[in-house]
């Protein structure tokens, strides 16, 4: 089984996102690895991409961005512009109302193997709609090539399961790489809030809100967690505090220093909304603070690319072992373990 790590785990879920901690941490290799090995005779698979993908050349590093190779029978979601550039024979099954800078998102089935540039929905709700539509078309597993950056509006956390790609591109210092990766894994593993809170808070897309001990929802007017002015007035009966946007250090610090409020449950949409430093989070938790999320993906595995874009190479085996120990999950260097 070691020859095909975590492929069977993926099959337990109806959606998967593959997320890279940084460019060149091997996210695309991981996607290729997964797509090449899924048993298509048993599962109908669809794949799309979110984020600022769309150019054939990586904007940051100027390295060539690979087209994804699809197998015959796979479904894919991409923009109209990239659909027209496809290098395979495919059958259109849906044209959505979801529009991106490259046109609407279309869904098609590959009738031959071949190459395609993926550029799917660019918002979280658009991604959720795309995933729901694929299920209507009989898709068993939707795979999202996910970006993890402030620039991406769509959150990969809407998928049931997740694979995280890390590597020397994130840090070439081994212990720093281990620590920083472990921190992100901790965030991914943050537990979900109660069903009641999820129902109440999910529709709220912006602002800050709190739920009192009677379950009544209140909005904190004019407040964003980024602003320095946030004041916690008249919130004596606050049981849950919800930050719909980004959670940042200054807010967490302010909350920690409020003796009354730091004990309440702090809820964020998902782990991609948390932009706090490990130190600040540790202090918050030490003071009795708790963070929960509305959406969470089950982290299946972590992959490592030990080579940095500058050419520096970490010891693959040592990196995998150390991260694995820190996060208590299997860690793979796919290039090494599979020769892909």
């Amino acid at each position: 089984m070691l020859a095909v790590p975590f492929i069977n785990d993926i099959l337990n879920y109806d959606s998967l996102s593959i997320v890279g901690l940084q460019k060149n941490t091997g996210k695309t290799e991981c996607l290729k690895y997964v797509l090449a090995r899924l048993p298509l005779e048993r599962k109908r698979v669809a794949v799309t991409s979110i984020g600022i993908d769309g150019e054939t050349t990586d904007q940051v590093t100027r390295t060539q961005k690979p087209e994804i190779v699809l197998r015959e029978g796979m479904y894919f979601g991409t923009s109209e512009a990239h659909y027209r550039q496809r290098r395979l024979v495919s059958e259109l099954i849906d044209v959505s109302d979801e529009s991106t800078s490259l046109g609407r998102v279309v869904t098609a089935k590959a009738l031959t193997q071949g190459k395609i540039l993926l550029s799917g929905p660019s918002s979280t709700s658009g991604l959720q709609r795309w995933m729901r539509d694929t299920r209507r078309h009989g898709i068993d597993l939707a795979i999202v090539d996910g970006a993890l950056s402030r620039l991406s509006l769509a959150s990969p956390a809407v998928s049931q399961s997740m694979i995280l790609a890390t590597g020397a591109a994130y840090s070439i210092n081994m212990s720093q790489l281990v620590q920083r990766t472990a921190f992100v894994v901790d965030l991914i593993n943050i537990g979900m809030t109660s069903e009641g809170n999820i129902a109440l808070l999910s529709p709220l897309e912006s602002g800050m809100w709190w739920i009192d001990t009677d379950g009544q929802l209140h909005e904190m007017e004019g407040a964003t967690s980024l602003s320095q002015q946030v004041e916690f007035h008249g919130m004596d009966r606050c049981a849950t505090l919800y930050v719909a946007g980004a959670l940042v250090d200054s807010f967490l610090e302010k909350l920690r220093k409020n003796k009354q409020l730091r004990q309440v449950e702090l809820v964020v949409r998902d782990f991609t909304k948390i932009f706090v430093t490990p130190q600040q989070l540790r202090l918050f938790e030490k003071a009795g603070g708790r963070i929960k999320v509305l959406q969470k993906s089950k982290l299946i595995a972590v992959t490592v690319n030990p080579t940095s874009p500058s050419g520096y190479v970490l010891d693959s085996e040592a990196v995998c072992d150390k991260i694995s120990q820190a996060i208590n999950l299997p860690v793979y260097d796919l290039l090494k373990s599979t020769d892909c």
Partner: protein
Amino acid sequence: MQLKNVIESPCALRFMLDGLDLQSGFARRWLLDTEMMTCEAEIEASYDVLRQFVDFVRSIEPSFLNTLLFRLQGVKDIRTTVKNLRQQSTLDDIELFEVKHLAILSTEVAKLLKNHNLDSAVEIQSLDEVITILDPDGMKIASFYIYDSYCEQLKDLRIAMRKNPDKQDELLLEAAEIEEEVRIDLTKKLHSHVDDIERALIALAKVDIGVAKARQVVDQELCFPTISNDGSSCYKALFHPQVKDALNRAGRHYQPVDISFADSPTLITGANMGGKTVVLKTLTLCQLLFQFGFGIPASEASIAIKDEIYFCIGDEQSIEKGLSSFAAEMKNIDAVIQASRQNRRLLALIDEPARTTNPTEGTALVQALLKVLSTKHMSLVMTTHYDIEPGTAHCLRVKGFDNGSMNYSLVEVAGGEVPHEALTIAQSLGIDSEWIDLARKELDESKQQTSTI
């Protein structure tokens, strides 16, 4: 005038439109682009269709309705594609997919409607030939690509691709040329059906709109109006849906009113908080709903067709134009007077004109306005608190405070005498007694002075 031009009217037309459960964005856009009807036959026909939709909505199984609504959700705005087809510019795969998707959808919806004898309400073009062109293998699935069966050579090339993935890029290029020829051929074949395709698209929007309007009629208990030919309008148990909704939410009851007005001025007087403004809002709303073919919020309605509808509500300031509330109001009423000089069927609803200026000049302005408009052939409904001489105007008064509560019904009165209930009402609102008592004293003193003189 299109619906989208009046959607923000202060009569709260938007509330009615937002309440329509339309299934596709295309249907909404289509509805907003519809022209206001001013022709009797057209309005008559639109209510005939709506009546059929209401019968349909009332009689069908919920599961069947859901099936239909689900189909209608799939309707996309493919007008650009239709335009390209009309110009015979070669359609690409995505556009061909859109045409095929529409053809299959409209055939399915047509079948559903035919089973319920609704095919006479909205005629949906049969697009069987379009489907045949785009579905050469007879799969009846709304998916599309340049099928192997369009060309033997294409089929061979694709077989070769699967056998030799190494040569794929080369073979794809070769296939691309053939595919383009197929697209040119398909576009040519489809071009002769372009009118049918466009009609089918619009018909689907009409079905969506018809079902949504019909559900609104049933849910909000709206009525079908008759068309009045003598320029007068008459409503029984008239209500404003938004106000009614708000009151019901607060656990309170809405009191509907009866009202009729002719092709001449009608003056409404009455106490503050007596619902005069709501009556004007509702009359404006009903006139617009009528001429855009919606159900009417009343138990019975007979409505005259108008070419132009003016609703002047005094408190609109125009900050962008730098006009005060008085100036904005004067301009609006001026437009009514100008329009009254044209030979058009006109309805003007004017709420408390000149209320923001001093009562002496205000009274003079309103009195003169009534005189000017009385000489014109138009329907005018105007509210006021000023004591003015009604002349030939038909006068209505809100019944007002009745056994400690407000009675909103309108009663006919001979003259335009305005009620003096402001202080009583202020008292009932619990306003500071030092203020109100002093006001009453002032009033008594001035009355005594007048009688002494």
